[in-house]
């Protein structure tokens, strides 16, 4: 197990290096940071000087080299736009994103799994048809439109919930949480729903499909033949077996929750790393963009690792490395 984790860590470092490398390769083309950095009346000489000082006149691999060297020491440089250390910026913004991602992942998982089970157990019911089709409407719309629509209905018209931001936050160590205040929780509702819709649909459909498959397996039939109760069969046997594939996909999807958060955070002015990234793209704030991408890669790598470990826990066949005859 330890060897496995060690191996995965090596892999992770490679993945992150590649991500950083590609990021650097690409950044040269997303625009000129100086356009945002220098004032309207800066002269050509100022541009040249600034370019040289930022090292932007160097070939990208040299820039990449320095980036890696500094990143290894936890240094991601100074944000061009906000003039603060990038690592500090990201750490400051991280709690917001994590709380949002966590909240929407919870919504997606709980409702996704429940609805998935429901629709699988009643494959021919009318309500199932409604849920299945309705869930598609949710993913047929771009996230930004759903967000704006929710704001319009719940904040502007009904005035039930706040339209933007995190509300009041409480500082616990370096972690700034919105989960402990009422306004913080209220602010979380709309963005969390917006962000979870897509994942919810996906998880629901996945659970349903897997559950339908599992319900047809011999061991479920045999469990019936053994005289077990419906409850024990549906929740004890079918659900647990459904979870194995669901965990993998869900894990990956959780990663994309963070990615999708870019849009949601922008629409709801959620002060997380996603909106930081979008604003940085607009200003070609290369240090922030690079650090963000490496961070996202890290998140994926960690999630993948957790997923694999969960796999081991859930599925005994993998635990002792036995080869299955499947």
């Amino acid at each position: 197990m330890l060897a496995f984790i060690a191996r995965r860590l090596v892999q992770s470092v490679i993945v992150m290096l590649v991500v950083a490398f590609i990021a650097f390769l690409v950044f040269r083309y997303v625009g000129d940071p100086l356009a945002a950095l220098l004032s309207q009346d800066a002269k050509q000489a100022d541009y040249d000087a600034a370019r040289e000082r930022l090292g932007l006149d160097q070939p990208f691999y040299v820039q990449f080299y320095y980036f890696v060297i500094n990143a290894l020491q936890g240094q991601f440089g100074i944000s061009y736009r906000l003039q603060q250390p990038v690592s500090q910026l990201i750490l400051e913004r991280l709690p917001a994103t994590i709380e949002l991602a966590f909240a929407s992942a919870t919504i997606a998982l709980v409702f996704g799994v429940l609805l998935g089970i429901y629709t699988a157990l009643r494959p021919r019911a009318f309500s199932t048809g409604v849920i299945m089709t309705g869930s598609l409407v949710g993913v047929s719309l771009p996230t930004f439109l759903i967000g704006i629509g929710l704001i319009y209905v719940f904040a502007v018209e009904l005035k039930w919930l706040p339209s933007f931001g995190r509300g009041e936050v409480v500082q616990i160590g370096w972690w700034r949480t919105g989960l402990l205040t009422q306004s913080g929780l209220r602010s979380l509702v709309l963005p969390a729903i917006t962000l979870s819709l897509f994942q919810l649909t996906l998880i629901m459909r996945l659970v349903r499909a897997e559950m339908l498959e599992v319900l047809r397996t011999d061991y479920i039939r045999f469990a019936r033949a053994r005289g077990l109760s419906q409850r024990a069969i549906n929740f004890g046997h079918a659900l647990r077996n459904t979870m194995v594939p669901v965990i993998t996909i869900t894990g990956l999807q959780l990663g994309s929750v963070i990615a999708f958060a870019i849009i949601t955070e922008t629409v709801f002015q959620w002060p997380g790393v996603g909106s930081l990234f979008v604003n940085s793209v607009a200003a070609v704030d290369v240090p922030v963009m690079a650090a963000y991408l490496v961070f996202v890669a890290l998140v994926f790598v960690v999630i993948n690792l957790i997923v694999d470990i969960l796999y081991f826990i859930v599925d005994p066949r993998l635990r002792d490395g036995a080869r299955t005859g499947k």
Partner: protein
Amino acid sequence: MTEPVLSIKDLVVEFPFRDDVFRAVNGVSFDIMPGEVVGVVGESGAGKSMTGSAVIGLIERPGHIAGGEIRLKGERIDNLPEEAKAKLRGKRIGMVFQDPLTSLNPLYTVGEQLVETIRTHLPLNEAQARQKAIDLLTEAGIPKAAERIDSYPHQFSGGMRQRVVIALAIAAEPELIIADEPTSALDVSVQAQIIKVLKKLCSSHGAAVMLITHDMGVIAQTADRMVVMHHGKVVETGTVGDIIRRPREAYTIKLIQSIPTILRQEHAATPAEAANDDGAYVQVKNLVRDFEIGKGSFTKLLPGKTEIFRAVNDVSFSISKGETFGLVGESGSGKSTCAKMIVGLLRPTSGQIIVDGHDIWAGGKGHQERRKRVQMIFQDPYASLNPRWRVADIIAEPMRTLGIARNRSEVDDRVAELLRRVRLDPSVMRKFPHEFSGGQRQRIAIARALSSQPEFIVCDEPTSALDVSVQAQVLDLMSELQSEFGLTYLLISHNLAVVRQMSNAVGVLHNGVLVEKGPTDAIFDNPQADYTRMLLDAVPDISKVA
């Protein structure tokens, strides 16, 4: 007269399809008395399993019972509501499904599944239930049950799993046990143990057993009475001895005749000449194959030690031209691995294979020669035919690839000719594989193998996917072709009867080692190795009917 445990009258099971209705079971009636084992036989698709499912009330949708009645100890059960039916299951009717490998939930330990079942039916606490579970496992023949109870299903062998399934089925001491092909997935040695367990249970608990199988040998050894089914109907019932010795219906007669026996038969192949290994057409010399295990694809990039498993260990034999060499052995003994190396699909770790004087793994010429001369017939005829290709294309592929025939009409002519050879109408050329029956598919596979005009054909379990009557047709065809073209066969099978009928010489593989080889009769009548003897003793055979 005692009341039958199970009484089925005019049972009809229907599957509504599109526009018409398919009757899987069409008016079946029979009874089972307490303590009695009734065997249900019939070819694949005859409706045996469906009858069993109907009794326990687990017919898959959209199938349903459309007529007749089922009584358990006189009480009608087919029209009970679902909850009431659920109460019967496990408690009064135990069921063993066809495939032991998939009947157990892989995520729970054997013990958990047993305890769960026991506590559902009996008022026991956790500890008592566990004790009961251990007792049941011991009874079902699992050695050291107390130690093994916390293992997961995948940690058990197939035979052990089958025994666990039986333990589960009898946990609540049901009055009726339905065993659906409890042994078909197992090799002979394990099969014998399972049959023993079932019989013992029947006598000690006084339960009635409905034993579904297509293996007449098993019936002959286990059952008191038998029911023969054909196309959803019962064609004959009676005591086992009566039916085997005096079958009345044409279908039963055909069924019994097509069962190969392990005993020597008049029309069996002639024994091999004293083998002169060096001059033989096919020579297999000191074949070894190792597999690396326990490594994923990524880890292969990293240095580290690998575990090695030797699947084939120093196997040598030879086959003279025009003869058949049978290779037998239990599952996992390395038969298929040998076959793959011989046809060139798997590179041997060491050793040589020489066909007609060419080393087929030497590359260059040997390679080229091999493609033309060596062909293979695979275990599962359906899997060996590309489901998206038409029969004509499948059969023509070897000709096209090897350049035997190129222009269209020539290819078509040859395909038609080959189809005729395997007794199929050339008009089937435009069909797809799924439009054929199992036996026809195997014929197509044989036609494909003949297409490159080979001299040597390796047959890896050519009939194990087929039921007995079809198996007989295919074996006959193979013999005919052999005499017609002078083909040489390597016949791999775990069915000893088939091997006995077909081959001139036999080799016995055990854990990758060739423990014994020699002329067929010598091996079968006078086995030398312990393993061979064990294998032969375990074979059930209808001729053993008292």
